């Protein structure tokens, strides 16, 4: 299963769920759905914030992996 098909709650670590940018009602939406909503016109503000949290987690998880290769 690709990252786009995974629900936000699986991709956002517990600590980032305490951010004001986390919206529990979007936790079951997939990253793909969230990206789509964030890019809509007008953009969905909750989706935009959730997208940034997912991407922050992905970036931090990959940070040392990228440097280690």
């Amino acid at each position: 299963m690709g990252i786009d098909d995974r629900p936000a709650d699986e991709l956002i670590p517990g600590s980032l769920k305490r951010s004001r940018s986390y919206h529990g009602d979007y936790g079951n939406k997939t990253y793909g759905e969230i990206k789509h909503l964030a890019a809509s016109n007008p953009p969905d503000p909750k989706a935009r914030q959730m997208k940034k949290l997912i991407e922050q987690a992905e970036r931090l998880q990959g940070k040392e992996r990228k440097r280690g290769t």
Partner: protein
Amino acid sequence: MKLTASFKRGVAQAKREWRAARYDRALAVVSRLLEDWPDNPQLLTMWGALVQLQSTDTAATLDEAKASLERAVELGEDSPEAWKELGHFLSAVEDDAQGASRCFDKAVALCKGTLAEALLAKADSLSELGRRDEALACLAEAYWLRAHNGKPAGAAGAEILDRLKDLARTE
């Protein structure tokens, strides 16, 4: 010397845990290192980043993570890494695009400054080696960076231009 070795070993261990996705262990290692080096910007930056990756509720708070990143920036004012991480935090965690943009500006300016200095030093080495064209290219790139770093190239820019002219005159 022993202290430096122990610091390097500790950071390497934390990075190994981080790469292996054992974020709780990586955080524990960095927390231990911070007991000995509480004002180290690299450790403070790592700690602030790792707190965000914790899966349990018992971990430190996001406010503490932010405070750690702010302290890293304060202590390592010339470290683009700390500014970049604080920028990402403000953007993603606090949805503060304006604050994030200021941090990224600072990181970009620091990187450009360091790159310009390295290019000028490399131009000297290449010039000594008789590799004139490559030295000219380095000087031109350094000048461009200085001129596009948010402030006028000024005296430093004029000095680079003089060096470019001198080098261009040589055969």
